[in-house]
């Protein structure tokens, strides 16, 4: 058996929480942004694209710094939340936000590939049958971009499981509170005596992503069978 410390169980739980929350939280936004970029021609489209892709290009640590500036006490968003009595940084919320931001470009890109593959005539068909744009969005575009959505979510979930750089900066590395698997691995790995522990956590991480992968595959298969 793989030896795991009690804080490791915490880390696993936290990682799952953070990844799941980040993925679920991002889904509606990701879908909306992907829809906007793919189907709507509007001013500032390029700006949206750049913003979405920004976290991908920058090293996660840098993203973490920017998030710290944004969510911190004096930050634009952080001060807002502070006024409402909510502290973001150094909480699990910050970890979720970090993972969401870092994984967002992956989610949006996957969804876009899915959406771009939709036959425009199907959208036309739904509109001649009386569906308004939001109706078409929900009943045609959403289900037809489902493969992209599922793929994007699983990408994002996996990416969140491995998110380290941004998380450690905005959420800190506090065992039992914000220490997710990658942070725990980092801690173990930085001391030569606990390398096996690091390896154990790696294996756990891989195992989780394996489960997610299988879920994704079976979802894709289920949808294929429907036809």
């Amino acid at each position, binding site marked *: 058996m793989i030896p795991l410390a009690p804080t490791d169980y915490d880390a696993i739980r936290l990682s799952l929480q953070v990844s799941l929350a980040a993925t679920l939280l991002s889904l509606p936004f990701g879908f909306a942004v992907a829809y906007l970029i793919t189907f709507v021609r509007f001013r500032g489209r390029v700006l949206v694209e750049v913003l979405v892709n920004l976290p991908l290009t920058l090293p996660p640590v840098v993203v973490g710094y920017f998030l710290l500036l944004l969510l911190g006490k004096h930050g634009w968003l952080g001060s807002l939340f502070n006024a409402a009595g909510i502290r973001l940084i150094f909480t699990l919320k910050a970890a979720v936000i970090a993972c969401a931001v870092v994984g967002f470009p992956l989610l949006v890109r996957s969804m876009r590939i899915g959406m771009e593959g939709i*036959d425009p*005539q*199907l959208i*036309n*068909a*739904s*509109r*001649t*049958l*009386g*569906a*308004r744009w939001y*109706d078409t969005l929900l*009943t*045609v575009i959403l*289900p*037809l971009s*489902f493969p992209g959505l599922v793929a994007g979510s699983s990408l994002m979930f996996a990416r969140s499981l491995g998110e380290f750089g941004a998380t450690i900066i905005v959420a800190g590395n506090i065992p039992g509170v914000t220490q997710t698997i990658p942070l725990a691995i980092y801690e173990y790995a930085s001391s030569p005596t606990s390398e096996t522990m690091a390896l154990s956590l790696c294996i756990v991480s891989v195992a989780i992503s394996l489960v997610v992968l299988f879920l994704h595959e079976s979802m894709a298969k289920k*949808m294929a069978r*429907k*036809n």
Partner: protein
Amino acid sequence: MQLSMAIRKNYGSFTLSTDVTVFGDRVGIFGVSGSGKSTLVSVLAGLVEPDVGEIFLNGECLFSSLNGINFRPEQRRIAMVFQQHCLFPHLSVKNNLLYGFKRCPEKYRSIDFSALVEVLKLEELLGRGVTNLSGGEKQRVALGRAILANPRLLLMDEPLSALDDTLRFQIIPYLKSVSSEFGIPYLFISHSLVEMRLMVDTVLAFEKGVMVGQTTSEQLARNRMGSSQVGYINLLKLGRPSDEGSLYAYPWGAARLLLSEKSERDESVAELSSKDIIIFKQHPEAISARNLLQCKVCSLFSSGRRIGVELDCAGNTLISEVVQDAVNELGIVPGSTVFAAVKASAFRILPG
């Protein structure tokens, strides 16, 4: 329905340009492949925006480049049967059929789902996905989906092209009755003259994107007699037949026809090609053709190398085709009396 379209739409080398006002609830669109029929109905449905022009349906402006009016497709209540089906791959047959129905305001919902499903023979397919349907099955679902949207205008782009005759001639009367019963006018695209004549009254003929004529479906068929391999198809309304030896005798207006085919219905429609009618000046003796009708020549018209002869047989009209030599030799002129011989096997009763 009163529809007027004065629009232009350019696609590189192809330009659709029409300026037409059409009255009537059953309108056909005819033209060779690539003449712009599908483009026209897409414009009407709001899926393709014309470069310039105006569209009015029953007095209401749907599009006007001048006034910046452009109703969105979902605001037009114009349903469309697409040439390439365009079924929703993620929905079952049933949910495809009901897609427009669910979005139709309650007050307009008048089509009966189960009657439609029965006519289209879709009962057994309702639970299935649409991806693996056969070509004809897909086409029927597409047709049903558009009708169930209870539109105020129905556009049909070759909706029967993938169907066998039996189905086709069962669906045609249904479409007509739905149209008249619920007041749904339609525009019907087809390459089949027979479908045209059964389905529509008025035909808009297109050539290279330009409307070249607005005629009746009857007239269209006569015009095309000469160039068609099958000639002009007479459509005869027959009554209930009685046995007559090995044949069946059908009342046809005041006249009586012998056919080799039997029908169980009170009313049938039979096809008869203009090529299957032979004209005699005098009553011939001992002829194998079972029908010998005394007719009066109403008019002559030419179509290609052939001459069409419009005959009046006891009040019914028949079109026969002959060559010019025969006209001269037999002295066929309007007003003259001739005998038309038709074999009992030349008729074809349309299924229905």
